[in-house]
């Protein structure tokens, strides 16, 4: 009897929760779900109109989103699609709309301004697409005027490149045991120190490839207690540029959560390198780097691809130094659009607000991914 009652209760609660989730879905679920337009709210307010457009974009229903725009006569649907997804393969190609924020900037009887911040989830984390949208009223209905961002087109041309790459012949299965592989590149940690931060320990440092061959590098570290016991072991994951050309320096940051620096007696750090085939191109110029102060401290600049090869994904790493030249923080960001030859693409690396006053110098490096090859 009790079991039957329990089963009926569980079924009833499940039906109730399904009904609640269907009738009042959370924004992220709304963005993710492929529900039909009948679930869209009527565009009776500027916010509702913006929400509808963003939800359609989030469902990758770009046709419906384009059809609902007030200024669709100013550009074509493919142009709108290229604005959202990018022309070339990039982080914009396969993202998922994680959530979005809407902030009214101005409201009038016939026109309103709304800042829409779309948080797109990608394989390397979230990137934000911020658009200031004008919303106009027409025939009692609010419609969004989409601020189209046209990706620059590179005119057809030939860009001569003195191509330089390294190929490696590895030991073969038929080689005898005396035939050893070419040895790994020599790398050296030129700076490293731990800091106590955010309820954990953070290791900051820089790694130099002092060899004449390219290296694939990783840095792993263990925090040791006074008795020699390893408290934790972590690696730099993507807070490092993994491919280092000869004499190139990368910053690295290793985060240890829930450990106090006072618990740590020493640090065992293990840089590892392996020889890889790599290319010296493309060369990326990092233009107009500057620090922005509070309230939104960050390091911004522009990437310019000096080569003829399209860079699909660029990872930007910033090393921040104090006035004594010591590394105070390492931060990074990804550029969500493809970096075309000779076409500046902006980037912005966030800086923790409490550290921004300490920063007096910085250095920015990039690592790039092209759909045909690394580096």
């Amino acid at each position, binding site marked *: 009897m009790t079991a039957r009652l329990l089963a009926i209760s569980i079924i009833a609660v499940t039906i109730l929760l399904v009904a609640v989730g269907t009738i009042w879905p959370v924004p992220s679920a709304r963005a993710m779900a492929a529900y039909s337009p009948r679930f869209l709210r009527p565009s009776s307010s500027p916010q509702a109109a913006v929400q509808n457009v963003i939800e359609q974009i989030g469902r990758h229903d770009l046709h419906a989103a384009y059809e609902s725009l007030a200024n669709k006569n100013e550009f074509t649907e493919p142009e709108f699609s290229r604005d959202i997804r990018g022309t070339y393969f990039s982080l914009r190609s396969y993202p998922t709309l994680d959530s979005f924020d809407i902030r009214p900037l101005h409201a009038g009887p016939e026109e309103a301004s709304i800042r829409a911040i779309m948080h797109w989830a990608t394989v390397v984390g979230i990137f934000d697409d911020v658009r200031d949208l004008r919303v106009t009223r027409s025939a009692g209905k609010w419609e969004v005027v989409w601020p189209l961002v046209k990706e620059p087109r590179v005119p057809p041309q030939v860009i001569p490149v003195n191509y*330089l790459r390294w190929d490696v012949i590895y030991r073969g299965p038929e080689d005898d045991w*005396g035939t*050893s592989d070419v040895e790994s590149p020599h790398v050296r940690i*030129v700076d490293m120190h731990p800091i106590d931060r955010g309820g954990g320990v953070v290791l900051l440092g820089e790694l130099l490839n002092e060899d*004449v061959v390219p290296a694939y590098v990783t840095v792993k570290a263990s925090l040791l207690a006074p008795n020699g016991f390893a408290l934790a072991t972590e690696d730099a994951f993507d807070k490092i540029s993994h491919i280092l050309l000869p004499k190139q320096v990368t910053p690295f940051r290793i985060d240890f959560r829930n450990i106090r620096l006072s618990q740590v007696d020493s640090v065992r750090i293990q840089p590892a390198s392996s020889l890889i085939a790599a290319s*010296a191109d493309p060369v990326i*110029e990092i233009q107009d780097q*500057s620090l922005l102060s509070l309230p939104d401290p960050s390091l911004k600049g522009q990437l310019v691809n000096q080569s003829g090869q399209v860079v699909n994904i660029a990872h930007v790493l910033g090393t921040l130094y104090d006035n004594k030249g010591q590394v105070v923080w390492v931060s990074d960001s990804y550029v969500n659009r493809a970096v075309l030859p000779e076409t500046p693409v902006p980037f912005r690396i966030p800086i923790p607000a409490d550290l921004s006053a300490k920063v007096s110098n910085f*250095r920015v490096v990039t690592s790039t991914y092209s759909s045909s090859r690394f580096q």
Partner: protein
Amino acid sequence: MRTRLTCLFVLLCLASTCMLGASGALQAPGRIEAGNPFSIATSGSGKAVLYIVGPQQVLKREIQLGDNVSFDRGDLHNAGLYLIVLAGSGVNETAQLQVVAHHQPAELSFLAKPSRAPVDQRDGISGVVYVFDTFQNLILQPMPVEFRISEASGGTETRNESTHNGVVWVRMNSAPKSGAAQFLATAGAVTEKRVIQQIPGDPCHLRMTAKSSGQQIVLETEPLRDCSGNAVPDGTIVTFTESYNGKQSTVDVPLKRDVAKTELPAHEGAVISVATGVVMGNEIRWGGK
């Protein structure tokens, strides 16, 4: 007490059997080269079984006592100490056979370190050679081995050494000139080759020049050399940094044909610096020309 007596009895039996084997129905060569044909003479009459037991190999032949038992080329190919046992028809004899590696080297295991060596370094390159015969037996008898480093510039350095217990090692100097050197080890008719990259040191002087090109500044380093005059390898990253109005632009450029060249936006009063690794170069204050 009983166990000790049993052991003593067995030992005495073995000793007497061995003595009988040396002068009795079994006459085997005491030592042969691996892979060579050989024969074992027997005496007496009747049938018997001949066993040859050794490292990784056992041979068994049913024989007629009084015959010569022949073994073909390659029948015994592992070097080591073998036990020959003749059993049957009232015969129970043993003998020992020493199989040594063939005197002709057929294969060299050549370990050369490092694969990249700094130029002009005394004893900077080491080579170790193990000499084997056709059947992968380590040749323990002394064997002359020639080590030769042939540099890209044409120079050679040769050293002749002899193996001890099958191995020989040598330390040699790296050349004063950079480039790929061939490190050869030769024993008999066999030669093994390894490639040693002899690499230059850090740049001795890093100097760049700047010239105007429209809205851009063309920056180019002088050919990068180490303090011995060797060209720094292509691909070495050179970082150009331009600081202006509280902003900066940087670019990491790989050396190509000994020079690094790039363009940066022209800003009046900008300070441009250059560096590679931990080596700093000159600074230029851009005046617009």
